């Protein structure tokens, strides 16, 4: 990735992006869907705006990854 493409990506915005508040309200639901289906495809299909947000927001994606690890570890 060149610096130019890095800036290009940084300035891209997705109109489906639901923002932090809504993404965090659905975080546990989204994570369980990912764990139930062993892939994020179904969760992203049901909640495209949340998937778009996690792709763009570092802090919310950090929370998503953290919860995925925590909840995944407690699954039988």
């Amino acid at each position, binding site marked *: 990735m060149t*610096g130019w493409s*890095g800036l290009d990506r940084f300035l891209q915005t997705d109109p489906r992006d639901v923002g932090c508040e809504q993404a965090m309200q659905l975080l546990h*639901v989204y994570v*369980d869907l990912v764990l139930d289906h062993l892939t994020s495809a179904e969760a992203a299909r049901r909640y495209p705006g949340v998937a778009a947000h996690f*792709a763009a927001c*570092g802090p919310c994606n950090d929370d998503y990854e953290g919860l995925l690890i925590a*909840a995944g570890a*407690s699954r039988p």
Partner: protein
Amino acid sequence: MTECRRLDVESAAWLRDLGSTGAQREDALVRLHELLLRIARGELGRRSARQRQVTGPELDDLAHQAAADALLAITAKLGQFRGESRFTTWAYRFVILEVSTKLGRHFWQRPTVALAAEDWDRLPDRFGMSPDEQAQWHGLVVALRQAVDQELTERQRLVFAAIVLHGVPLDALVIELGSTRNAIYKTMFDARRKLRAALAAKGYLSAGDPGEVTTDIGTGRRT
């Protein structure tokens, strides 16, 4: 719109025990606190390995604070659990969010950033622009700076400078500005859209296809 799942056995047991009284409830609180503490430690360790913000006893202290605050929030909001996920997934969310907030606060214990300043020299490094390629990106950076000055509001400039030029984590900026993560993100979202339009108008970037977006805003990490 979310759907309620059929409550699994483990979730039902947590609700029963936490909703009871006496020794049964106390035992459930102790067990839940142990789980939350373990997750807080793990999550702080995961993030600290990358950001090197907190280590040693300080990390363990933050883990205890996050677990205790999460437990309080969970017991206060137990009636709001609607069975949309497993109980533990719902409960763990509280401790993960507490970890984020506590790390955001912790950032300012060693403040090294003057928010009002704009350090444009850091921008090329922030986006991995090589000095060898300066001839290629110099015009883009000049145009970006001009767009920041001319197109953004004062608030958007402040947020842009903090996150992009100084690498302040978004959650730390939330604390400093007394705002919310959602509000800061929205400010940055609007700023990014304006800047892209300005750079596209000058032929530096395309107008933008909203397809796959993979950006990293506000963790202090480099993209």
